[in-house]
């Protein structure tokens, strides 16, 4: 190994260490920013190290690529609103996966259209291209659904799972064939075509509300594609960064599925999102709902000593996070204590609600996750539910016949009283009646979430 290679390998090793340190720093918000700067330095080292590689003889194409990428990347990073984070991450996966795919295609072409590849390298290249291509179209579909360019509801067709599985089998069949006999460009192009189609067909039947799981899963695939690139071109920093990503995406997909009370397989093959479940419309007959005026609700909040705000998807949709924070500040001025209960699937991706509230200047210590906040509901005077429904439905704990039975929920029903901000008595995403709304401890404040919150703010100010 000559001095140049030594420097390159040292840069790659340092980059790998910085990536791990960066991810480790995310275990605490105080250190996270600094840690991510280290990860960025790691990326810079990896780039600089690569520029020393002997095979690189011309720099003009590199310069063009770097400039174009930066010019597109900076506005993408600085301008995107926090509410659009899921689709931003989806499209960004698409770009990364496209790069991995193109590197794979190039390697295949340069090695005499596969003729110069041994079985091992072809395996790595094939996996890289397959996962990369699938992630490109899958990410574009996820982006389209989240951005509402495409309909968010699940799109299904007859024999959908059978046809998707057949396509999956065919794609892997071609991959197997290529590994046995690498010098077959037609098979390679066919595999890319099928992988692109597979990405579309796998995401189409998944509903908008399940998209977080898909985005995490695509994160994992993009990582695995990068790792496969590392195997194909013999580069350890690619293998390490890819493995870190693969593990992260996989872990998050599983956490998300659990929080939605669904098996991983059910999310991928279930086409559940948006289809009403024809159950449990029975239990509410004869029960009454207590509606409350903004004035009364304001008095109740102003004189409460412990308030827990339960923000749901509806809050993000109404862009009401700033008004909530204003309301919380007013309650605190009156001597009350305000905390936020964050369900793992609140918002549109894992942890999304935390970002939205942090953006509205809510200090992060007030954002408590489910396990931390649940024991505190019993001591809470008022739980203020804003645009959340299924994640506060006690049926998940009490009614084994309910479709959401077993789903982890926030125990709002244990609070001394609850005020629920809701547009109407329509059922939630899962189409299930919510006994919390009929509880004698619960008062409903009907109307648009943001308008209701503004009214509460005005009323408390007037007290």
């Amino acid at each position, binding site marked *: 190994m000559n001095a140049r290679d030594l420097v390159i390998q040292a840069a790659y090793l340092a980059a790998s260490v910085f990536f791990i340190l960066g991810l480790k720093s995310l275990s605490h918000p105080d250190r996270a920013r600094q840690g991510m700067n280290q990860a960025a330095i790691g990326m810079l080292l990896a780039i600089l190290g690569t520029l020393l590689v002997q095979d690189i003889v011309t720099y003009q194409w590199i310069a063009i690529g770097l400039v174009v990428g930066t010019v597109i990347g900076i506005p993408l*990073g600085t301008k995107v609103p926090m509410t659009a984070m899921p689709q931003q991450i989806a499209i960004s996966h698409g770009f990364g996966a496209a790069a991995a795919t193109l590197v794979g295609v190039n390697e295949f072409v340069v090695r005499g259209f596969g003729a110069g590849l041994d079985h091992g390298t072809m395996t790595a290249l094939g996996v890289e291209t397959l996962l990369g291509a699938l992630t490109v179209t899958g990410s574009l579909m996820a982006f389209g659904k989240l951005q509402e360019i495409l309909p968010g509801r699940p799109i299904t067709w007859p024999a959908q799972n059978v046809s998707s599985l057949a396509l999956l089998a065919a794609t892997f069949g071609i991959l197997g064939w290529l590994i046995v006999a690498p010098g077959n460009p037609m098979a390679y192009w066919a595999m890319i075509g099928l992988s692109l189609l597979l990405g579309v067909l796998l995401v189409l039947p998944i509903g908008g509300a399940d998209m977080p799981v898909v985005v995490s899963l695509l994160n994992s695939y993009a990582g695995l594609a990068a790792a496969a690139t590392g195997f194909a*071109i013999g580069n350890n920093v690619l293998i390490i960064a890819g493995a870190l990503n693969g593990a992260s995406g996989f872990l998050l997909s599983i956490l998300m599925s659990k929080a939605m009370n669904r098996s991983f397989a059910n999310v991928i093959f279930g086409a559940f999102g948006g289809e009403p479940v024809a159950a449990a419309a029975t239990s509410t007959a004869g029960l009454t709902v207590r509606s409350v005026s903004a004035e009364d609700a304001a008095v109740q909040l102003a004189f409460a000593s412990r308030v827990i705000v339960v923000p749901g998807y509806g809050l993000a949709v109404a862009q009401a996070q700033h008004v909530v924070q204003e309301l919380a500040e007013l309650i605190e001025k009156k001597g009350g204590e305000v905390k936020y209960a964050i369900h793992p699937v609140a918002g549109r991706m894992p942890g999304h609600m935390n970002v939205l509230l942090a953006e509205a200047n809510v200090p*992060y210590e007030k954002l408590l996750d489910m396990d931390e906040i649940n024991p505190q509901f019993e001591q809470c005077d008022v739980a203020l539910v804003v645009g959340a429904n299924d994640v506060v439905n006690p049926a998940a704990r009490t009614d084994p016949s309910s479709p959401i039975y077993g789903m982890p929920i926030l125990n709002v029903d244990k609070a001394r009283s609850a005020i629920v901000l809701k547009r109407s008595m329509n059922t939630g995403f899962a189409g299930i009646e919510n006994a919390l709304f009929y509880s004698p401890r619960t008062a409903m404040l009907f109307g648009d979430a943001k308008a209701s919150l503004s009214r509460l703010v005005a009323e408390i100010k007037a007290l």
Partner: protein
Amino acid sequence: MTAMTIIQIYVFVLAAFVGYMVISRVPPLLHTPLMSATNAISGISLVGSLVAAGSADHHVSNILGCVAVACAMVNVVGGFVITDRMLRMFQRKPKTPAADGTQ
């Protein structure tokens, strides 16, 4: 299977373990920044793209490589910028509006 491949498999498996350990300690509070951080890191495909774009073998390599560099760079730059933008918002104390650069 060559000795090189075996070492690569070791590296992959051990890195995946490290990833699993490190990431399972990230609190749900920071799951969105985590996703955008790993997304930025997955732009590491840039390394492979640079070699392709700078090689002298083929014009095809230069062009495919150039497009790949651009794509990976979007991923890297966008990913790190947005992660930092999010992490900057996670504050212990409420900020004064003047000090808040994100608005």
